[in-house]
């Protein structure tokens, strides 16, 4: 086998030690030259894979993890033949309900991928404009494999910002082909649609890596720093007496422009800059003075509270009625990207004084400004000018008024019916009418009510329910101060060297990534509780985006957040906030690096071997408990293709498609033992690839189970099964019925449960079987190629 020797240079220096920019560049160059020499030798079969190039791998996955479709609509409405009813019938173009579902999933994945590709393209172009195409990509002394995805998929190491353009062009080209397949009269096989969705997901992963890499190196964000600072989070951390600029979205560039302006003008103490959603995370990676309001679910409440004087929106997951909401409380809106222009006048080329004046005089409600430096100046100056005036605005109703309004409720109950989670809004209103605000408080806490505002839209009395809940929450929940470790970016090579073996052998029971959005069934607390449960059990817990923020909002009895209780290292009991949504690339990145650094699998052009390695040996599991978006669909489908299973919350069923394994079909789980060359009996590990759980208990048990891998050593298997049984007992009361499936021989049985399990095995007619030496899902010929 062609192997790339891991570069075992002594690189355990602290990150900061070498942080002089010039030095970095020169190191970068030296390393590069070596790479270039070895690259051609180790090129695998699929550099820059086209749409069909990884199809055979997909078909292997789809053979085992068959797509499970839950149509959200029975009809297709994409062409002018009109809506076709696909209930047992084919459409006017010949499509059937399965292919149609898969098509819509592909479409969602394409939209998600486009969001990340567009975002990354903007970052890369902007940063090249600012820092030059030759700006070196160097993540410091502890990270040699700076871009595991780019190396694997593009087949080369990106050395400078300019190299990322090739990555994005490739991604955009693939995306165009994939979206084309969604056109009427293209693909007809649901399996081929799924293969394409996986390709879209992979492109999404790649675009995210390029985007995060660019911003990390060019904006000086933490480079895999396990000791990234704690960032202030929560409403209570924002001094609403000062002028407040709120950034919403995902693109750090305008927020960075604001931070720069404030620094340049010494205004750090005079103006508060805070953020919602990933923009918050990434601005705080750029400058820790930025404050984090919280996840997406804070958005409407925070706007309604009127605290923000200026609202700067960039892109993705922003309420599209932000302008309308801002106008209500006289906040100014600045749109900053082509993705969200809101019909505002494009004042990019206008003089800053002019724009400030127009906004302050309310000649306009907002402006589109595509120059981030100008955004920085205008946002700050406008906030400072209008803050005083706005302070006297009475924005939210008083508690008395709320009680009076609540009395108008007709108890029609439609607020509950239109609530995505059927939350008892009506009860809260009725109680408030009687002066009891406790039920409102319950809805407010942990964003149990996401505040999507559907109830308010439906209310026949037009009660401002979102304003009411905001006021009550702010009044009763005093100390809303939390924190979050700043997004550290990727995992260091040295960490991979440390944990590679324990993960692959099973001694570390799993790597669990809590990612994605905040469309939770029961509020954000559940995510924090799940994280806590697995941290206590020695798992590595990784997190990003809204998940990372939800975790930070939970404090234990001593008032400590999980970030205060657990370190940020990628190791057992580590709570690793990698950053924003784009940082999710480092989750698959870490798994790829295990295959490369620990197992010495070559990366370049070698997708299938890497994915096969991860599927069979790396006990990682993604959890997107509140996944709501097309981006989340793309992310999940992308990591699935790498062989990483994902658990979504119950709302995830509305994505229309899961990938479920069938434990009752033994033949589906056979493995190829590449060492012995024999087909051997396997086990459902991981059992599913994309799974929607109904509630937290079910999810927790499933997550533990999905960390099992064929490659586990007996000791590792014992550890994993021990947690699985523990958690199953906790949430279901008994040892799981299917335990026998995961026990290959007696050495796999957790000692604590030995007796009970032995009895169960006997009842089940269990027989011991062989452990694989080199378990694989690839065909044997692949081995020949590799060796």
């Amino acid at each position, binding site marked *: 086998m062609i192997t790339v020797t891991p570069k075992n240079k002594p690189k355990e220096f602290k990150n900061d030690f070498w942080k002089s920019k010039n030095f970095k560049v020169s190191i970068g160059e030296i390393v590069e030259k070596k790479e270039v020499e070895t690259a051609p030798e180790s090129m695998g079969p699929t550099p820059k894979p086209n749409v069909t190039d990884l199809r055979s791998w997909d078909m292997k996955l789809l053979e085992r993890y068959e797509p*499970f*479709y*839950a*149509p*959200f*609509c*029975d*009809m297709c409405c994409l062409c002018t033949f009109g*809506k076709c*009813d*696909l*209930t*047992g019938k084919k459409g006017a173009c010949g499509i059937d*309900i*399965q292919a149609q579902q898969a098509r819509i999933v592909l479409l969602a994945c394409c939209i998600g991928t486009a969001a990340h590709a567009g975002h990354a393209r903007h970052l890369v172009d902007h940063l090249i404009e600012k820092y030059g195409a030759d700006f070196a990509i160097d993540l410091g002394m502890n990270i040699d494999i700076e871009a595991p995805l780019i190396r694997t998929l593009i087949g080369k190491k990106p050395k400078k910002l300019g190299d990322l353009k090739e990555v994005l062009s490739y991604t955009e080209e693939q995306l165009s082909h994939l979206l084309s397949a969604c056109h009427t009269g293209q693909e007809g096989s649901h399996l081929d649609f799924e293969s394409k969705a996986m390709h879209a997901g992979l492109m999404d992963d790649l675009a995210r890596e390029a985007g995060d890499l660019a911003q990390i190196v060019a904006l000086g964000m933490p480079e895999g720093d396990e000791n990234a600072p704690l960032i202030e989070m929560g409403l209570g951390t924002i001094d609403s007496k000062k002028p407040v600029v709120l950034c919403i979205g995902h693109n750090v560039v305008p927020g960075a422009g604001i931070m720069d302006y404030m620094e340049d003008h010494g205004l750090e103490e005079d103006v508060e800059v805070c953020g919602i959603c990933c923009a918050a995370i990434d601005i705080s990676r750029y400058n820790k003075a930025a404050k984090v309001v919280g996840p997406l679910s804070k958005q409407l409440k925070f706007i309604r509270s009127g605290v923000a004087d200026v609202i700067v929106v960039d892109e993705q997951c922003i309420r599209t009625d932000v302008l309308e909401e801002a106008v209500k409380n006289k906040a100014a809106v600045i749109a900053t990207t082509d993705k969200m222009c809101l019909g505002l006048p494009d004042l990019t080329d206008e003089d800053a004084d002019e724009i400030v004046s127009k906004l302050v005089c309310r000649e306009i409600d907002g402006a589109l400004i595509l120059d981030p430096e100008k955004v920085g100046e205008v946002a700050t100056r406008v906030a400072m000018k209008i803050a005083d005036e706005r302070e006297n605005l009475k924005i939210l109703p008083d508690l008395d008024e709320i009680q009076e309004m609540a009395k108008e409720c007709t108890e029609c109950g439609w607020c509950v*019916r*239109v609530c*995505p989670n*059927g939350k008892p809004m009506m009860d809260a209103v009725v109680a408030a009418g009687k002066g009891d605000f406790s039920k409102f408080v319950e809805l407010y806490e942990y964003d149990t009510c996401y505040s999507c505002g559907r109830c308010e839209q439906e209310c026949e009395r037009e009660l401002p329910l979102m304003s009411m809940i905001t006021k009550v929450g702010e009044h009763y929940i005093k100390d809303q101060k939390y924190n979050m470790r700043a997004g550290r970016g990727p995992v260091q090579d040295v960490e991979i060297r440390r944990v590679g073996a324990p993960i692959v052998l099973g001694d570390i029971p799993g790597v669990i990534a809590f990612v994605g959005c905040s469309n939770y*069934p029961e509020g954000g607390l559940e995510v924090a509780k799940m994280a806590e449960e697995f941290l206590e059990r020695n798992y590595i817990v990784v997190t990003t985006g809204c998940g990372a923020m939800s975790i930070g909002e939970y404090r234990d009895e001593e008032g400590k957040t999980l970030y205060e209780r657990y370190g940020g290292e990628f190791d057992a009991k580590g709570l690793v906030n990698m950053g924003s949504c784009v940082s999710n690339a480092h989750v698959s990145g870490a798994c790829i690096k295990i295959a490369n650094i620990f197992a010495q699998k070559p990366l370049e052009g070698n997708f299938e071997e890497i994915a096969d390695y991860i599927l069979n040996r790396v006990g990682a599991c993604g959890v997107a408990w509140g996944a709501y978006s097309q981006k989340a669909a793309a992310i999940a489908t992308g990591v699935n293709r790498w062989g990483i299973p994902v658990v979504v919350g*119950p*709302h995830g*069923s*509305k994505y*229309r498609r*899961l990938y*479920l394994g*069938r434990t*009752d079909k033994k033949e589906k789980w056979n493995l190829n033992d590449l060492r012995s060359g024999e087909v051997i009996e396997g086990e459902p590990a991981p059992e599913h690839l994309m*799974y*929607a*759980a*109904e*509630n*937290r*208990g*079910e999810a927790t048990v*499933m997550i533990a189970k999905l960390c099992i891998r064929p490659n586990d050593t007996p000791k590792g298997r014992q550890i994993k099964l021990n947690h699985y049984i523990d958690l199953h007992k906790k*949430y*279901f*009361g*008994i040892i799981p*019925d299917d335990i026998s499936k995961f026990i290959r021989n007696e050495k796999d049985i957790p000692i604590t449960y030995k007796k009970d399990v032995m009895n169960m095995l006997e009842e089940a007619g269990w027989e011991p079987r062989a452990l694989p030496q080199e378990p694989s899902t690839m065909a044997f010929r692949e081995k020949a190629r590799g060796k």
Partner: protein
Amino acid sequence: MNERVIPWQPTVIAGPKQALLVTPETAEMMLKKAKRPLMVMGPLVKDSPVLSLAVLIAEKWNIPIVSTGDMFKTLNEADIKSKPYGVVEIVNLLKDPDWGGINGEGQHDLVLFIGVIYYIGSQGLSTLKHFAPHLKTLTLCKFFHSNADASFPNMKDEEWIKYLEKLAE
């Protein structure tokens, strides 16, 4: 339009096909006709009297119970036999005409749903509507489920309990 047969979450309306509205009487007829019924019980019926009534119905009609979410624990603690599955797992098995059923006696022909979270239940019912022509679905929740073959209407608790009692007695 009859308020009782608007889907509880009104936007789950999926197309021309809508569930048949059933009363306890028509539900009883469906049960009588069924050869291998199954009850899928979700975590929303943790409280009596609904839980007791659901169990009574299962007993009276001799229907095996699958518990979803973490409902198994509640049933187990009450010494009620059930088999735990994720709701998506059991639906996945039910849609396979060749699956042997919960007791290995053959695929079920009637599946009763009660207590599954509305929207994920609705999605599962959609799966079965499209891909399981070999079985019928009947929901016993107090919510109209348009994706089922047959469903109770939207009801208040009192009426619902009466419905369940009729089916249990």
